[in-house]
């Protein structure tokens, strides 16, 4: 039997009268690269925030096995602090004895030279790299990434997918919200969010094309 790193069971969430999730269910097995697609406002970010624990569902439950690394859609950073200072903050948050994994991520994503730069001085793409690094630097069993490659150049985009596949091969569960049709082949599973529910699509390519419309 497959071991799940995350189980989302019959989750509901409303903002005022607008019901965004209406009994969404999702199982994320170990060692899976899973895509979540859906139209704008379908509730993809809400689902990821609920999985990460940042948002409470109105009903239903989320079971997490181990820590979850969460990369929000828009970089959540402090403009006046440097890249290094952000790493030190999150080193304490994750209770890490060393920053070696974070340094490796800086090299992989190609922004090690920006370590002493303040966030205000960074380009949008580099901010997003830091945003992603902060979600991955503690090597959690599950990572949920909300459109994590916004602003990346093509090389960094490709390196991101290499990184995601490496994590999957190491037994991590990687959940990615995507809008891009050409990402389809990269996922092992694809959840299409529509009408507040998640439909796991068998034909992945069609699913992404539908979702990316």
């Amino acid at each position: 039997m497959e071991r799940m790193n995350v189980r989302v069971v019959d989750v509901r969430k409303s903002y005022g009268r607008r019901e965004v999730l209406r009994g969404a269910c999702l199982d994320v097995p170990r060692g899976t690269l899973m895509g979540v697609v859906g139209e704008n406002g379908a509730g993809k970010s809400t689902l990821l925030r609920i999985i990460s624990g940042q948002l409470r569902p109105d009903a239903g439950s989320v079971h997490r096995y181990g820590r979850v690394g969460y990369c929000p859609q828009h970089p959540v950073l402090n403009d006046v602090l440097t890249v290094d200072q952000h790493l030190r903050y999150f080193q304490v948050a994750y209770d890490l004895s060393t920053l070696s994994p974070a340094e490796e991520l800086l090299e992989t994503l190609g922004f090690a030279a920006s370590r002493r730069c303040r966030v205000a001085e960074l380009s949008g793409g580099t901010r997003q790299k830091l945003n992603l690094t902060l979600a991955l630097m503690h090597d959690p069993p599950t990572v949920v990434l909300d459109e994590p490659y916004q602003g990346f150049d093509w090389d960094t985009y490709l390196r991101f997918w290499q990184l995601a596949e490496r994590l999957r091969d190491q037994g991590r569960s990687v959940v990615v919200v995507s809008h891009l049709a050409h990402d389809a082949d990269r996922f092992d599973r694809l959840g299409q969010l529509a009408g507040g529910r998640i439909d796991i699509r068998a034909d992945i390519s069609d699913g992404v094309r539908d979702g990316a419309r």
Partner: protein
Amino acid sequence: MRRWVRALGTACRLTLTGVGRDRLALCMVVLFIPAWIWAVRWVVREAEVRFRLYGLQGPADGVASGDFTANGNHIGQIVGALNAVTLITGFIMLMVTFATTELDRRLILCGFPRTALMLAKTTVLLLVAAVVAGYAAWLLCGSWAVRQEGLLTVAVFMAALVYGGAGIMLGSVLRRELEGVLVVIMMSLVDLGLQNPIMAREVDGIPLLPLFGPMQAAFAAAFTDEVPWRPVTHGILWLLATTSLGLGVVYARTRGYPRPT
């Protein structure tokens, strides 16, 4: 415990780094406070002004109990200094809170000790208020012979703390910086305007205003040898109310976050 102390040290250091990089705020502290005090010193008349100190006996020379008179120019300088100090401390803590609210929530979600982050904000507030108030009190004491220099420093420090606490509260509750800036400006205007003896007569309800305590303590320090304990307590209550409300909002918003396993 060791991890918590490390977290507190990191949060204090990085929050202070953020404050130190706000060049405009530092310029305001260094230049605006003396400029404002000296401008008042040049402009405001030196006529005697009557004011009331609650809980103190006034001089027996025909003036009612609790009523005092002092040089209006000196009173104007105190009010001007309180105005500058409250605006600067309020803005600094408002901006610090605004800039860090989202990141603080992310850090707490990732396992950063919430109490360490909240205590770091309070520590930075104490440090900022101490520096700004110490500087302003030093300038006032250099302007004329203040009767109790220590108490004057404490009074200005309390004023800075009350508005710094309000800055934390507004930064936690409001969604836009402009809203917070306007509220701090209006609070300070109303608070000091209604209590300024040069402009106002005694009005019922003034003791409810946030700067009632610091202002009473500042007047007592400048012009008497007494310590008005009741207003001092009043100022501390306002400080506790504003700061704890701001930090309470942070606590409430992150209360449901899962504990790291």
